[in-house]
């Protein structure tokens, strides 16, 4: 019974990772950029949702939409100001800029509102515990899993069935050739950032509801874990991020459940290292040889 409870714990933790990893992996898939500021966009989304609920007094769905919209705008601004001028620079320069942007967002937030934590109002979503044969499942964790699945399907649909998705795939394949074919590469990349960041914003609000406590540095660890999840599933592959997130959550819960709770974060990063050594393309990735 304890094992099943741990699996349930792990899946609800993993759904959060998966939700953040979806946006992460999407931006990487299209622009080949590891956006380390993604975790901080997630934090901003969480705070936007919090202030929308406490100050504007709106309900869950308007707060979620507001957070997604503000994060989409924030994502596009970040891309325009910090990443676009570096589009033809070395990868390492963009990576360092991403880390700089991440620190900037964190400390601007602290400057604006202080570093003290806030607690999400508990009345936002019904919180009932379902008990099945001694295993407790909270309605909120089912809701998070559901949201992640719906967003993943929606994302797959956008990427594979819509015009903008087609443009994204073309840009991801070869940006220069896409430009020659009349695709507006800049707009496509902006749209990618908007969608990815909106997902982070949604994850922020849901995280706030599930874990109650939010603070300006909350994005760092989930951001890194989402990165591990994305690499685990195969970075750039949308279902891979979902599976990677869930798997990481379950592994962490099992490690804690065996009594090694202090090793939990360590194990997550050992997984990252092992994956990079033995299967760099991730579980769902195919090893594609670079064409010359």
């Amino acid at each position, binding site marked *: 019974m*304890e094992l099943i*409870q741990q699996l349930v*714990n792990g899946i609800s933790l993993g759904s959060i990772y998966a939700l953040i990893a979806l946006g992460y992996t999407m931006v990487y898939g299209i622009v080949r950029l590891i956006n380390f500021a993604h975790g901080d966009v997630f934090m901003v989304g969480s705070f936007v949702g919090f202030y929308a609920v406490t100050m504007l007094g709106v309900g869950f769905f308007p707060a979620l939409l507001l957070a997604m919209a503000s994060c989409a705008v924030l994502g596009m601004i970040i891309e325009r100001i910090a990443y676009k001028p570096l589009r033809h620079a070395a990868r390492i320069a963009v990576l360092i800029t991403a880390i700089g942007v991440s620190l900037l967002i964190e400390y601007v937030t602290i400057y604006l509102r202080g570093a003290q934590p*806030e*607690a999400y109002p508990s009345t936002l979503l019904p919180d009932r515990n379902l008990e099945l044969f001694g295993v407790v499942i909270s309605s909120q964790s089912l809701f998070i899993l559901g949201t992640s699945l719906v967003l993943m399907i929606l994302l797959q649909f956008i990427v594979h069935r819509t015009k903008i998705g087609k443009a994204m795939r073309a840009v991801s394949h070869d940006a220069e050739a896409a430009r020659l074919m009349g695709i507006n590469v800049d707009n496509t990349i902006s749209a990618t950032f908007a969608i990815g960041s909106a997902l982070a914003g949604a994850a922020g609000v849901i995280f706030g509801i599930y*874990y*109650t406590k939010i603070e300006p540095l909350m994005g760092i660890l989930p951001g890194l874990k989402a990165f591990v999840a994305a690499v685990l599933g195969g970075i750039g592959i949308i279902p891979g991020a979902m599976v990677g997130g869930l798997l990481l959550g379950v592994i962490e819960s099992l490690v804690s*459940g065996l009594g090694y709770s202090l090793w939990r974060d360590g194990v997550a990063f050992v997984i990252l290292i092992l994956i990079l050594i033995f299967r760099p393309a991730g579980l769902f990735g195919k090893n594609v040889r670079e064409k010359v």
Partner: protein
Amino acid sequence: MKKKRVAGVFFSLMLTAGLMAGCGGNQQGGSSSGGNGGGGGGGDVIKIGANLELSGGVASYGQSIAEGLDLALEEINKEGINGKKLELVKVDNKSEAAEATNGAIKLISQDKVVAIIGSATSTNTLAQVQVANDNKVPLITPTGTNPTITNKDGKVNEFVFRTCFIDPFQGTVAAKFALNELKVKNAAVLIDSSSDYSKGLAASFKDAFTQGGGKIVAEEAYVAKDTDFRATLTRIKSANPEFIFLPGYYEEVGLIVKQARELGLNVPIMGGDGWDSPKLVEIAGKDALNNTYITNHYSSGDPDPKIQEFVKAFKAKYNKAPDAFNALGYDTAYFLADAIKRAGSADPVKIKDALAKTKDLQLVSGTLTLNENHDPVKSAAILEYKDGQQQFKTKVNP
């Protein structure tokens, strides 16, 4: 070639001379500031440093202490001490040990304070002990409860004092309360392994609980900043404890209590003064906090007239009821002011001697008498959370 060597010798001599001059100058500065009775720039003010957690993970503690200090200094400065006013220089240690060390160095070397108050947590206070001892400036922590702050390996830290009781006392009181009042036979312990405070309380709880005939059925740990404790709590639940001892800080404690109740762990949970923050109630939620207890330095619900007078003054200034950190910040200012008055001068070493001799000083958090370890001997209050409110349950004497 030769010229170069001569130049080298010359420069090294210059450097040495400069260094020596620098040292001499410093020493002179130190003694003269001691001599004229005011490290704090002389004149009519005595400068006191406050090295507090004004931002960061436990900002609520530092801010509460600062509020208490401000209120007390306002009252003290109405009359002044031997004709001088106290001036508070605050630095923010961002709830980090390294920043606390830097802050202490800055207060002593730049602001020339005669004593430092702070920090709120044991870890951040320990980071300043060496600086205070080396520079011979008294350091008083209002709320740092770890025993090694004042006494390390049987040796007293001459310049370090505290206004609160120590961890072993809190842990022992909690164990006695669990055994005698709640009548539980076995307990689980969940500690924050990144905090000296949490480990200290847990160790003394375990000793007292097992000596009293109880049994520890589970011991688990977490690290500050974790947000998901469900896996660990599931493990604790499967050990079927009747009681959980959870000495930690409010941010994590709030989440742990909430998640424990969600998983159906409805046994009494108890902690120490680290729980005492209004944020705890927001994070955990009122219902989850029912059936939880804490040991604390004082309770605003205590009918003692001295306490009620303070509560009234505090409410008039801040429009809220004071928590234990407010009270201890307030008390620390009086503790220091009393010593400065008795020392008759603002020389840090004389203040230190006066602090060490403090006896029967009436404070809000009880009557304070220092023992040979610079630790106060005073009573603890046990509070119970009922619908999000702390209720005064009982007072336990050492």
